C-alpha cells in the first residue's frame, strides 16, 4: 500500500493534513483528513460571566470573529430570557452583512479564483491572488482591497472594532447609529452591490464560459449526494442571522426544521479515533459511515447547502442569480461541490443588497437599543450562519449567569465528514495507476476541500508555521519512495 501525505494544505486556515492510501494496484483505497485540536477553550470560558463571552469568542478565530460574536450574543440573550428590540437586531444584522461581504470577497479572490482564473494545474507560485490580479487587471486588485476596507470600516463603526467586536450585550447592542453614519453606509452598500455583480461577471466570463471548467464542476470527481442545512426565515428564505435551521434531504424534500434551542434533538456528534475534530450527523437518520446518499446521516452546511435548503433569497438581484444558478446546474438540489463558489457569490450579492436594505430602514437609527434583562435562566443557545456553515454556541450558567459549561459547533465541523468524503472521491478520480502524482493533481484534490472554505483553527493561526507542502509517498511497508516539496 502506498501512503501519500499532503501536509500542510495550502490556502486553508488551520493546519490540516491529508493522507491518501493507495493499494498495490495504485488505486486510492482510503483518505484521511486530520486537523489538530486547540485545547481548553471550554475551560477558558468556565467561571466567567456569560456576557463576557461575546468579546472572548472573537479571539477563537480571526477569520470569522463576527460570527462567533453574533452566535454568542444570541446565546447570552437566551440565557437572560430577552429579545433585542428591532433597532438592535437590525444593527447586528447590518454589521453581519458587512462581515459576510468582507469574508466572501477574500474567499473568491484569494482562495477560489486562483484555481480557475490562473488554472488548477498552473505553477503553485502563480496560483495566488497576485496571479489572479495579473490575469484580470491591476484595477481589480485595487477594487478588492477597497471593498474589503470599506466592509471593515462598517464593522469597526458598528462593532467597536473590526476584529475584536464588542457590540453585543445581552438584550441588545452597546451603541446606535447616527443618521450621517447611516448615510455613509448606504453609499458603501451601493458599492458592495456593484462589486458583487462584477464578481459574478468574472465567474461568468472565466468559469461558466469555459466548457472544461463547467465539465469539471458538473462531471468531475467532485459531486456528493448530501443533505443540505441552512438557516431560514419564516418564508424559508435564506437568513444568516436568525430563524430556524432547515435541512432538506438529497432529493430536496424537507427533512426537518427546528428552532436553535432544539438542535440537540436533530444533530449528534461522532468521534473517530483518527481525528480530533468531531463528525456531526443527522440524529434521526443515524451514522452509517462515510457514505453519501439518502440513507446517510451526513449533511453539509455551506453556501450551497444554504441555497439548497431555502426556497429563495429575500433580495431581488440575489433571487435572480439564485434562479439562474439552479437553472444552469439542473435544478435543486445541486450536489456539485465546486458549485459552492457560485453559491458564495450569490450570497455575496445577497449580503450586499441586504446591507443596503438595512441601512435604508428607518428603524436603523432608532434609540431603543436594549431590552432590560431578567434573571439568568441557566441555559442559552445561539445559532447563526457563519460563512463556513451553521454555527452553534450553547452555554450553561449558574443562577448568577456565571458560565459552567460551553459547547460550540463551528461551521466547518458540520462539514468534516463531507470534506473527508469529497477528498476521497477527488483522489479516487484523479490518481491513476501508473501515473505520476503531480503537483497539479494534488491541487485538484485540494480543490475539493477548498470549496468548503474550511477553517479549522478557530484560533487565528495555523500550525506548525510552515508554508511548503510536502507530499510523502510510502510503499506498503511504510518506506519512503517519493517526496514532492512545494516552496
Amino acid at each position, binding site marked *: 500500500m502506498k501512503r501519500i501525505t499532503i501536509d500542510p494544505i495550502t490556502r486553508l486556515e488551520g493546519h490540516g493534513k491529508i493522507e491518501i492510501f493507495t493499494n498495490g494496484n495504485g488505486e486510492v483505497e482510503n483518505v484521511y483528513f486530520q486537523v489538530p485540536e486547540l485545547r481548553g477553550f471550554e475551560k*477558558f470560558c468556565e467561571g466567567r460571566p456569560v456576557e463576557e463571552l461575546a468579546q472572548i469568542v472573537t479571539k477563537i478565530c480571526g477569520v470569522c470573529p463576527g460570527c462567533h460574536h453574533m452566535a454568542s450574543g444570541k446565546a447570552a440573550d437566551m440565557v437572560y430570557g430577552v429579545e433585542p428590540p428591532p433597532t438592535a437586531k437590525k444593527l447586528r444584522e447590518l454589521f453581519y452583512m458587512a462581515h459576510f461581504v468582507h469574508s466572501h470577497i477574500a474567499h473568491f479572490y484569494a*482562495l477560489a479564483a486562483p484555481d480557475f482564473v490562473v488554472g488548477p494545474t498552473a505553477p503553485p507560485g502563480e496560483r495566488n491572488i497576485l496571479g489572479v490580479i495579473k490575469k484580470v487587471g491591476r484595477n481589480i486588485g485595487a477594487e478588492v*482591497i477597497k471593498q474589503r476596507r470599506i466592509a471593515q470600516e462598517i464593522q469597526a463603526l458598528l462593532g467597536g472594532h473590526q*476584529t*475584536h467586536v464588542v457590540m453585543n450585550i445581552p438584550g441588545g447592542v452597546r451603541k446606535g447609529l447616527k443618521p450621517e453614519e447611516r448615510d455613509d453606509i448606504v453609499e458603501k452598500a451601493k458599492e458592495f452591490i456593484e462589486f458583487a455583480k462584477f464578481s459574478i461577471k468574472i465567474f461568468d466570463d472565466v468559469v461558466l464560459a469555459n466548457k472544461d471548467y463547467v465539465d469539471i464542476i458538473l462531471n468531475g470527481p467532485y459531486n456528493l449526494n448530501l443533505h443540505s442545512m441552512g438557516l431560514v426565515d419564516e418564508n424559508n428564505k435564506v437568513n444568516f442571522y436568525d430563524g430556524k435551521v432547515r435541512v432538506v434531504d438529497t432529493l430536496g424534500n424537507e427533512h426537518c426544521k427546528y428552532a436553535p434551542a432544539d438542535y440537540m434533538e436533530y444533530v449528534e456528534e461522532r468521534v473517530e479515533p483518527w481525528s480530533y475534530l468531531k463528525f456531526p450527523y443527522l440524529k434521526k437518520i443515524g451514522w452509517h459511515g462515510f457514505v453519501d446518499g439518502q440513507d446517510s446521516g451526513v449533511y453539509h452546511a455551506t453556501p450551497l447547502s444554504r441555497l439548497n435548503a431555502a426556497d429563495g433569497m429575500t433580495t431581488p438581484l440575489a433571487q435572480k442569480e439564485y434562479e439562474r444558478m439552479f437553472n444552469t446546474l439542473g435544478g435543486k438540489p445541486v450536489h456539485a461541490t465546486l458549485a459552492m463558489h457560485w453559491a458564495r457569490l450569490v450570497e455575496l450579492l445577497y449580503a450586499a443588497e441586504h446591507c443596503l436594505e438595512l441601512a435604508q430602514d428607518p428603524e436603523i437609527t432608532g434609540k431603543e437599543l436594549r431590552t432590560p434583562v431578567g434573571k439568568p435562566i441557566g441555559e442559552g443557545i445561539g445559532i447563526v450562519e457563519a460563512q463556513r456553515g451553521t454555527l452553534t454556541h450553547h452555554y450553561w450558567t449558574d443562577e448568577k449567569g456565571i458560565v459552567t459549561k460551553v459547547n460550540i459547533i463551528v461551521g466547518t465541523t458540520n462539514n468534516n465528514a463531507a470534506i473527508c468524503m469529497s477528498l476521497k472521491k477527488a483522489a479516487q478520480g484523479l490518481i491513476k495507476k501508473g501515473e505520476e502524482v503531480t503537483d497539479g493533481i494534488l491541487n485538484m484534490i485540494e480543490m475539493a476541500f477548498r470549496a468548503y472554505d474550511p477553517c479549522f483553527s478557530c*484560533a*487565528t*493561526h495555523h500550525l506548525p508555521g510552515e508554508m511548503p507542502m510536502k507530499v510523502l509517498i510510502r510503499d506498503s511497508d511504510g518506506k519512503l519512495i517519493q517526496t514532492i516539496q512545494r516552496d
Partner: protein
Amino acid sequence: MKTLVLGIGNDILSDDGIGTRLVNDLKKSYSGNHLCFDSTITGGLDMLHLIKNYDQLVVIDGIKTAEGKPGTVKYFSLQQYPPTLHLNTFHDSHFKDVVQLARNVGIAMPDKIWIITVEIFDDITFRTQLSPTLENMYHQIFAVTKSIIEKLKIYKAIINSHETI
C-alpha cells in the same frame, strides 16, 4: 521617517500572543519616541491597512519550527521571509503577497520591512499567560528583541544576519 513596530498574535492562546505582548512592553520603553506601535490578531489582507504609509516596518511574530529552541529570537528581511505563525495565512493571502499586491496597485508600502521571530513552545492551549517555558525566559526575549529594534533604528539597512539568544 515613520516606523511601525507591529506585533501579531492571539493574547488568549498562550505563546501565540508573544508578538503582541512584546509590542505592548516595547511601547512602554519607547514612550515619546518617534516609533509607532500596534498589534493585530490576524495576518492576510487585513494587515495592509495597518502598515500602509509607513517608511519602515518591523513585524514581531511567533514561529514554530521543527528543530527550533523555544525562546530563540531572530530577525529577517522581507526577502528572507520566515514562515511565522501569522504571516502565512492559508485562509487569505500570505504577507509577502499582500505587500506585493499593494505595491502593484499603487498603495504605499514600507520601503524596509523586517520580521522578528520568537520560537514558541505552546500555541494550542487557551490561556492568557505564556507557557511556563517561554515565561521563564521572557526577560531575555524582551532584551534581545529590544536590542534588535535598536540596531534596526540605528543602521536603517536591510539586515541579513541573524541574532539569537
